[in-house]
C-alpha cells in the first residue's frame, strides 16, 4: 500500500512522506532477542543432547542420557516441586497484598496517586541484592523480627534458611509489579459501572465481586504471570534468604553448570524446567480464559 502511494506521489511530482511498515518498530527488539536469546537458547538445546566427557565441556555426539538423568532422579523432581510451590505461593500472597493497594491507587485523586506511585516504586531504586541483605539482617537470629518474637513468645524463630524467608523476600520484591499491573486494569473500569450495579440491587461487596473483580482479571492475569515467571526463575533472593539450605531450580542449574561443570546435564535440566514452566503457565491461562471470554468476543 505504502509502495503504491509512493509511486503515485512520484508520478504526480509531489513528494509524499515516506511511509515505513510498522513492523519495523519491533525490528530492533527482534534482532536483539534473536542474537542474545534465541541463538543461545538453541545452543543450550543442542548441548542438552550431547555427551559429557570426563574432561572438557561436551563431545559432539548425540545422546538422551542427560534427559534420562534429569527426569529420572527423584531429587530433581523434589527441587522442581519446591520451586513451583514457592513461586505459586509468592504469586498468591503478592496478589492478596497488591490488590487492595492497586484498588486504593486507582481510586486516589491524581495528585495523591502520583505520590503513592512514587512510594510504591521507590524500592526498585535499591538493588535486589541489597534488599536481600536487608532481609537477612531483619530476619536473622538477632534481627528485629526475632528480637520481637523472643520478647513476645520467649523462644527463637529460625527464619533464614527456610522457605518462609524466601517467600517473604520474594513477595516484598514483586508487590510493586503486581500492583502496577492491577491498578492499570482497575483504572479502566468506569465508576458508573459500580453505581449501575448498586442501583440494580447489588451491595458494595456484591458489586465488587460481580463487576470490578471480573473486569480487573486482565490486570490480575498480567500481574500473576509476571510475578510467577520472575519468582520461579529467581536466584538472588533464594540464595541469600535460603542460605543455600533451600534449593530451587535456578540454583540447581547453576550448580550443575558451574560447580559440577556438567553443561549437558545443566542444559537438559534447563530445558525440562522451561518446558514445565511453560506447561504450568499454559494451564493457568486456560483456566483464566474461561473467566475472560468477553475480552475476545
Amino acid at each position: 500500500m505504502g509502495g503504491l502511494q509512493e509511486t503515485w506521489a512520484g508520478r504526480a511530482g509531489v513528494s509524499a512522506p515516506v511511509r515505513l511498515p510498522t513492523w519495523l518498530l519491533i525490528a530492533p527488539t527482534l534482532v536483539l532477542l534473536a542474537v542474545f536469546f534465541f541463538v543461545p537458547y538453541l545452543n543450550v538445546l543442542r548441548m542438552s543432547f550431547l555427551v559429557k566427557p570426563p574432561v572438557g565441556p561436551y563431545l559432539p555426539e548425540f545422546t538422551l542420557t542427560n534427559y534420562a538423568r534429569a527426569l529420572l532422579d527423584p531429587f530433581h523432581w523434589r527441587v522442581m516441586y519446591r520451586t513451583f510451590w514457592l513461586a505459586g505461593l509468592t504469586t498468591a500472597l503478592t496478589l492478596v497484598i497488591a490488590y487492595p493497594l492497586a484498588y486504593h491507587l486507582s481510586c486516589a485523586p491524581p495528585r495523591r496517586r502520583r505520590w503513592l506511585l512514587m512510594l510504591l516504586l521507590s524500592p526498585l531504586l535499591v538493588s535486589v541484592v541489597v534488599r536481600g541483605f536487608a532481609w537477612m539482617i531483619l530476619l536473622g537470629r538477632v534481627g528485629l523480627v526475632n528480637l520481637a518474637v523472643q520478647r513476645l513468645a520467649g523462644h527463637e524463630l529460625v527464619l533464614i534458611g527456610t522457605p518462609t524467608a524466601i517467600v517473604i523476600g520474594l513477595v516484598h520484591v514483586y508487590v510493586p509489579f503486581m500492583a502496577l499491573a492491577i491498578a492499570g486494569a482497575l483504572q479502566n473500569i468506569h465508576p458508573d459501572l459500580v453505581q449501575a450495579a448498586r442501583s440494580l440491587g447489588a451491595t458494595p461487596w456484591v458489586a465488587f465481586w460481580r463487576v470490578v473483580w471480573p473486569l480487573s482479571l486482565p490486570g490480575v492475569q498480567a500481574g500473576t504471570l509476571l510475578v510467577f515467571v520472575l519468582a520461579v526463575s529467581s536466584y538472588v533472593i533464594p540464595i541469600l534468604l535460603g542460605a543455600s539450605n533451600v534449593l530451587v531450580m535456578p540454583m540447581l542449574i547453576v550448580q550443575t553448570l558451574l560447580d559440577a561443570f556438567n553443561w549437558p546435564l545443566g542444559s537438559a535440566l534447563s530445558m525440562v524446567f522451561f518446558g514445565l514452566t511453560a506447561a504450568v503457565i499454559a494451564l493457568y491461562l486456560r483456566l483464566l480464559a474461561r473467566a475472560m471470554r468477553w475480552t475476545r468476543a
Partner: protein
Amino acid sequence: MSSITLRGLTKRFGSVAAVSSLDLEIREGELVTLLGPSGCGKTTTLRLIAGLELPDAGEVLFGDRPVTRLPPERRNVGIVFQSYALFPHMTVWQNVAFGLEMRRESPRVIRERVGAILERVQLRGLEQRYPHQLSGGQQQRVALARALVMNPAVLLLDEPLANLDAKLREDMRFYIRQLQRDVGITAVYVTHDQAEAMVLADRIALMRDGCLQQIGSPEEIYRQPRNVWVAEFIGLSNFIPGTVAGSRDGQLVVRTAAGTFTCTGRVEVGREVLICVRPEALHFGESHPNRLRGTVRERVFLGNLFDYRVEGPGGLHLRVQADPSQALPPGGNVTVSFDPSAAWAVDAGEV
C-alpha cells in the same frame, strides 16, 4: 411507580453548594427534565434522588416513603447513565438479568421478564452479544431495558443521549418519550439540551447554581419566563428595557425609549422591566398594535427563515425572524410590530 418529593435538598462539595435547598414535586407518571448549564447541580440532584450521593440537608421521598438515607440498592430506582454503564463482561441478556438476579427471582421469572423487555426495546436476537458488539443506539436500549426490567419506582436518566449522533438523538427522544408513556413510569431526565427538554418533558425544571429557577410546561417556560436568565437560557429573545406605567385590561403598559408598548406579565406598576419578545413574534409591517420604526442592518438566510438584525430607536437592537417570502434589503427603513400577547415583561431587578 411513585411520585418524588424533594424538600430543602442541599448538597455541598467543599465550600461549593452544588444543590441548595431545592424543593421539587414530581407527580406520578410524569416526566420532568432537569435543565440547566453545566455545573448547575442538575446531575447532583439526580444522584441525590438515586442515592448515589447523600444530601447534607433535606429530604427525598418516593410517594410517602422517605428514602433520604437509603443506599441506592434499596431505593428501587432505575438509572440510565450517560456512559450507559453496561457491564462489558456480560452479554445483553446477562446485563438485563443482573438486577433480577440480585433480587433472587426464580430462573423462570427472569427468563420471562428479560425476554419481554428485550422484545419491547426491539433487541430480540441480540441477547448473546456483548455491549461492544452493539451500536450506540442499541447500547442505549439495553441500558433502558436493564433499568425498566426491575419495574423501578422511578426512572432516572442522566443525559442518556449525549453520546449519540445528531440524527439518532432526534429519533431516540421520541422513542424514550413513547416508552416512558407506555410504561407509565415517573421519570427524571437530566439534560443541558433545551430542544431535548422541550420534546421530552411534561414539565421542565430549570436550574442554575444549585437553585430552581422555574418549573413549568415547556410552553410556560418559553412564553412566561420568570426572569431574564430563564428568558435568555431558553431560546432566543429580544429585551426592550422600560418602566411599567400602568395596567389596563390585565395588560401592562410599559414606557420605553422606543415608545410605549402593551404587554403581559406579573409585575407591579412602577417597576423597571425588560419586555421579552421572541424573534419570531416580531413582524414587519403594521399588522400588530405595538409598533416601532427601525433600520435593517443585516440579513442572514437560514433556509426556513430570514434572520434580521434591526436597529430601532434609542440604540435598540432587535433580532427578527421572518418568512423568507418577503426579503427586505439591509439598509432599508422598516416598521416592526408585535402583539401584546407575545410580549412578556419580567422584572429587571430579578436576575
